[in-house]
């Protein structure tokens, strides 16, 4: 990494093209395939995670700076929290008596 970065921003361009492609792919999977609904949600979910990673690494440069490692740990922990909050809440609130509605 140098102070002057005059080269063509390839990784931005690649990231952009990829994100458009992944979006279209998700739409295609959702509307033009006959997977079961669960499979569809899983597939488009994974595509979304890919896109998020592209933003994180290609656009936001998580790993750069003196605290690159700390940033990564921070993001991993936040994602862990997100999973706990989302899946935890769903599990707690839709199992048990709520399942009998």
């Amino acid at each position: 990494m140098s102070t002057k970065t005059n080269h063509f921003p390839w990784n931005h361009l690649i990231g952009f093209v990829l994100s458009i492609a992944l979006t279209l792919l998700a739409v295609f999977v959702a509307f033009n395939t006959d997977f079961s609904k669960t499979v569809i949600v899983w597939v488009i979910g994974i595509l979304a995670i890919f896109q998020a990673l592209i933003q994180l690494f290609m656009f936001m440069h998580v790993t750069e700076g003196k605290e690159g490692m700390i940033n990564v740990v921070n993001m991993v922990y936040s994602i862990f929290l997100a999973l706990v909050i989302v899946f935890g809440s769903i599990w707690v609130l839709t199992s048990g008596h709520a399942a009998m509605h």
Partner: protein
Amino acid sequence: MKGFKKLFGWLVMLTIPFLLAGCESNLIVFDPKGPVARSLTDLIIFSIIFMLVIVIVVFALFGYIVWKYRARSDDGNFEPEEEKGNHLLEIIWFTIPVIIVIALMIPTTKTIYEVEDVPQGYEEEEPLVIHVTSADWKWIFSYPDQDIETVNYLNIPADHPVQFKMTSAGTMQSFWVPELGGQKYTMANMQTNLFLVADRPGSYYGRNTSFNGKGYAHMDFEVQALSQDDFNDWVQEVHDTANTLTEEKYSEILEPTVIGRMTFNNTHLEWIDHAHGGSEKYLNPELYRISHGHEDHEGHDEKSEEETDSNEDQTKTEPSQSEDHAHH
């Protein structure tokens, strides 16, 4: 330091009678009157033994160390050696709690699953189904098979499983009869389930534990376990003497008030089951508006007033037990 010693002695004196009184009385949670409550009490006593051991170990270590290593005028103001720690010790006081947690976890899980079902030994019997509807600030019990509804008291056959199907007409409450079993919440638009059995005839204290506004302190009820014959007689008597609940009367009951007991020879389930929505049409926020200060004291006066007021539609087989929290 003299002052402290005196104070301390004085306090100890003051404490003793209370501690003695505590040992004498039978704390309700340790006095189960049915199989569900009994399995909870067993679990509790099991856990208390572990906790006592832990507390004694910590207290003993604490007392010993603090006494032994206190600074003294004759210790030459020595400087203690630095200590890094000790792996073996640290492993020990990590492992023993792990084992304790496992030991507590096994019966806990067993009991959690157990109390979700009809109590052991009663699987063969068809449970009596009672719908519990909690409202501000009263309990409504519906017996769909008997076609009976009671307010603020509950009669059940003894030695027979009862299945409570519980819901709420508004705020969240918690249905608790500590001598018969653990509590569970009641919530509008939802149904929770609870199984209880009373070993033998008797009167048990029940109440709401989930705070729901002004009348909360008075939101208790009596559970009467009757022999099967007495229970049948009671059902018959209600059919003979009690009034019919009308929708109009029902919405009056649902208003936020503290009221006495009532009995009807039909159930509100005929027109609404709060487990499946529709409660909102009975709600009136205006009735919950508070004006500060010039509030007269909620409770007793109003309660007894209501009681006489609604006497016409009550059947009482028992002598009137207004507001009976007693359980000793």
